[in-house]
């Protein structure tokens, strides 16, 4: 019977003794010696070839055989030769990746490890960002497992790698060294400029230096984060500087000409030019971030939210934030941004409207009305509604409890500083299906996984503290963010798919509710158990930008039941047409999101815009159901021929009648062209059911 060996690429090949002999001869020659047939025979005696043995294994055996026969110099030469080839192979693989990337349809499809979300086109800069990703993964993994070994022993560390490699869990953003995302307080910058985070600009003194300095500051902060940078105080500070220059009552007459240059600009024009400078600068692809734009988020507030967050706030000149002008500025920015988006594709800022609710409706009627009006005018933004200003969502996904609404003269408003240090995600579908396969109750296995991910996060936190102690994290030192106010996040993915595998119907029914509460309740229990004075955990349903696609692919490959190519980021099945809009609000209502402390944003997909009155009613529905975080998503049309952007979902361009159109849709928070999604995600977007308007 012929013997086969397995080559490095996994292919089988008939075994040939000649190749081994050749290699041994060459090794002897390389140290100036010669191997006789007898010498070779003695070495080969020690090598055991069985069917299915790998090349790597044969070479290991040859190494040992050379040493056993006491040819140490030859063994060393042989080892060095092998190492050199290993390095060659790595370079060859990188080169292959480079060529594949150049051939890929777009940047997201080309990315091998962790597709950068907001990269529009592939080019040299994005490729430069892709190449070191595998090294970062290895480095991050090593740092983490070393720490786990240190804290919990080798067994836990091995178990972590085992779960990770077998896709029970997923470490998000492993390709970056930075901690994840942060909502910052800008107060330290307002007081002392960027010097404390390594920059050279002084504190802003006027509107112009505020705008320029703000852009620089956001870029600097973002370069030290792997995810989003939220500036919930952006408009409040801008309002302060406008007030310093034009008076606190500036908003009462914005048509007056305040620019004495030939341009003769009105105050309104001066202000919107500031918007333009900031928004367009921040939406630029950024060199230091591999051509990604920074992820920038801002917030709007109704009167009550604003008062409870900033009621105690004092600016450096001793004044307090001025609501009436702030109110005007918020609305002006939103209206301006909505208009600007018909001119060009602007992804950032991701905006969240924070509304306080009372008696089943928005408490601040003016802002409830304005929110509905902006949706009806086709603006795309998030709404966060809470019956108590004890929490805020300042990120495109992250909700946080506000533990301290106070004001400090060194740190500013306490409520806005938060974020997530790191996200570690549990693939619920695999965990639960695998338990069923092994005939065990899923809660036993899940509990082991949940406990382990908490240990891993604690280890991550230790590494972060180490970096902090060594002065590597100036954002913390300077007070932009606070170590004890940042969460360690446990992500979940495949929740709907896990329930489906147990035969549970994905509708609002007691069985599904029980399942959701059991699983998320377990995670919350451990979040509390591991919580310490300066370490907090939360749980979020992660947006399945690329993890959902990966999990579906891996699970399908390993024979698990997989009903779709991208796991859901919602509590309902996206393509299920029998779930109506009100059901979706209910399925993201308080009963379901209760234990999801880190939040989940309902993306209500509609195929056309609604009227203001209809949106107002839906805001009421959200309050009644306790759905605290949502957005309405209506695909905008971009004409590939003439560049026209239309806020409606159209098949032909209304300007040039071209049928070559693309769509912008909101995906985990930000707007993006559908054709720039990775391939699987494009399929998900096309299957996504936009609630249809039945024909008349």
């Amino acid at each position, binding site marked *: 019977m012929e013997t086969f060996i397995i080559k490095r690429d996994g292919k089988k090949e008939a075994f040939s003794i000649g190749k081994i002999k050749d290699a041994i001869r060459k090794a002897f020659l390389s140290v100036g010696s010669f191997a006789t047939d007898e010498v070779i025979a003695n070495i080969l005696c020690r090598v055991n070839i069985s069917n299915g043995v790998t090349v790597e294994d044969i070479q290991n055996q040859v190494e040992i055989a050379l040493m056993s026969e006491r040819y140490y110099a030859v063994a060393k030469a042989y080892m060095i030769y092998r190492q050199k080839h290993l390095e060659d192979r790595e370079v060859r693989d990188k080169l292959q990746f480079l060529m594949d990337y150049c051939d890929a349809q777009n940047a997201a499809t080309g990315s091998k490890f962790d597709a950068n979300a907001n990269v529009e086109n592939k080019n040299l800069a994005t490729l430069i960002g892709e190449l070191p990703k595998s090294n970062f993964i290895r480095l991050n993994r090593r740092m983490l497992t070393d720490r786990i070994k240190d804290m919990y022993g080798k067994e836990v560390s091995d178990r972590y790698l085992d779960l990770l490699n077998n896709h029970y869990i997923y470490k998000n953003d492993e390709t970056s060294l930075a901690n994840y995302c942060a909502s910052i307080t800008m107060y330290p910058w307002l007081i002392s400029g960027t010097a404390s985070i390594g920059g050279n600009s002084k504190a802003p003194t006027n509107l112009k230096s505020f705008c320029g300095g703000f852009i620089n500051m956001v870029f600097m902060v973002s370069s030290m984060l792997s995810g989003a940078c939220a500036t919930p105080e952006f408009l409040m500070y801008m309002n302060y500087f406008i007030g310093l220059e034009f008076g606190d009552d500036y908003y009462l007459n914005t048509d007056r000409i305040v620019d004495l240059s030939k341009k003769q600009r009105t105050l309104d024009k001066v202000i919107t030019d500031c918007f333009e400078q900031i928004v367009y600068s921040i939406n630029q692809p950024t060199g230091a971030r591999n051509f990604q734009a920074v992820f920038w988020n801002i917030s709007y507030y109704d009167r009550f939210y604003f008062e409870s967050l900033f009621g105690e706030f004092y600016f450096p000149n001793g004044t307090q934030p001025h609501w009436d002008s702030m109110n005007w500025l918020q609305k002006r920015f939103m209206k301006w941004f909505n208009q600007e988006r018909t001119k060009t594709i602007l992804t950032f800022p991701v905006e969240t409207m924070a509304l306080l609710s009372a008696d089943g409706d928005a408490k601040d009627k003016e802002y409830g009305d304005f929110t509905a009006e902006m949706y009806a005018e086709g603006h795309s933004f998030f709404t966060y509604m809470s019956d108590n200003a004890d929490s805020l969502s300042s990120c495109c996904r992250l909700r946080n409890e506000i533990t301290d609404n106070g004001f400090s003269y060194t740190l500013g408003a306490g409520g806005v500083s938060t974020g997530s240090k790191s996200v570690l995600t549990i693939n619920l579908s695999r965990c639960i299906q695998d338990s069923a396969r092994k005939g065990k109750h899923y809660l036993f296995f899940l509990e082991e996984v949940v406990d382990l991910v908490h240990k891993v996060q604690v280890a991550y936190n230790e590494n972060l503290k180490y970096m902090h102690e060594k002065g590597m994290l100036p954002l913390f030192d300077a007070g932009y963010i606070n170590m004890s106010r940042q969460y360690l996040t446990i992500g979940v993915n495949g929740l709907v798919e896990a329930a489906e595998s147990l035969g549970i119907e994905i509708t609002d029914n007691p069985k599904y509710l029980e399942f959701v509460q059991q699983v998320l309740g377990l995670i919350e229990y451990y979040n509390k158990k591991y919580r310490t004075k300066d370490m907090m955990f939360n749980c979020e349903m992660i947006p399945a930008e690329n993890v959902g696609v990966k999990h579906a692919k891996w699970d399908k490959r390993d024979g698990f039941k997989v009903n779709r190519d991208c796991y859901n980021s919602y509590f309902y099945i996206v393509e299920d047409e029998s779930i*109506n*809009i*009100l059901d979706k609000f209910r399925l993201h209502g308080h009963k379901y999101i209760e234990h999801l402390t880190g939040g989940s944003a309902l993306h209500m997909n509609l195929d056309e815009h609604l*009227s203001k*009155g209809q949106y107002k009613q839906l805001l009421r*529905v959200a309050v*009644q159901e306790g759905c605290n975080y949502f957005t309405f998503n209506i695909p905008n049309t971009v004409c590939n021929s003439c560049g026209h952007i239309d806020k409606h979902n159209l098949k032909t361009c209304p300007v040039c009648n071209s049928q070559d159109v693309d769509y912008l849709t909101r995906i985990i928070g930000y707007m993006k062209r559908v054709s720039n999604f990775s391939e699987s995600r494009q399929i998900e977007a096309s299957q996504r059911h936009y609630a249809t308007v039945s024909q*008349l």
Partner: protein
Amino acid sequence: MLLYHSYNIVFQEVPGEVTLAINLSNCPNGCKGCHSPYLQENTGSTLDENVIATLLARYGEAITCICFMGGDANPEDVQNLVWFIKNNTQGRLKTAWYSGRPKLTDQFNLTTLDYLKLGPYIEQLGGLDSPATNQRFYCVIDGELEDKTLGFQKRKSLPAFPYDIF
């Protein structure tokens, strides 16, 4: 007896309202080019006060209007259910009827309806969004019909956004 095929939450059929639309089957009109010919068949489940009460329990607080799509074979049953809805929601919920008849029977009490669509679907003339349509959409104010059909056509002309026409 009324039979219903399905229900859905809709936004365009009754402008400005969040509407629970109930698709009734057994339609006698037999319009050529009908968008859902299955509704002409005698299929579906019974629609009675119990079913309406169940739907009200589930969606009553979230919607602003209930619309009957069809039911021309049994106008008096539609009338009764409209009464039932008005009585059980203290008049809070609006009611609408999409009828394929050119006009209502005299027995029908208009005051219980807030919106009414009349007219069969004629392929050449098109639906409510077609400028040539024979169909009419009315707002019922104090028992009088106010023609609001134009609103459907306005909404189609871009770039205006949908607005509350009433």
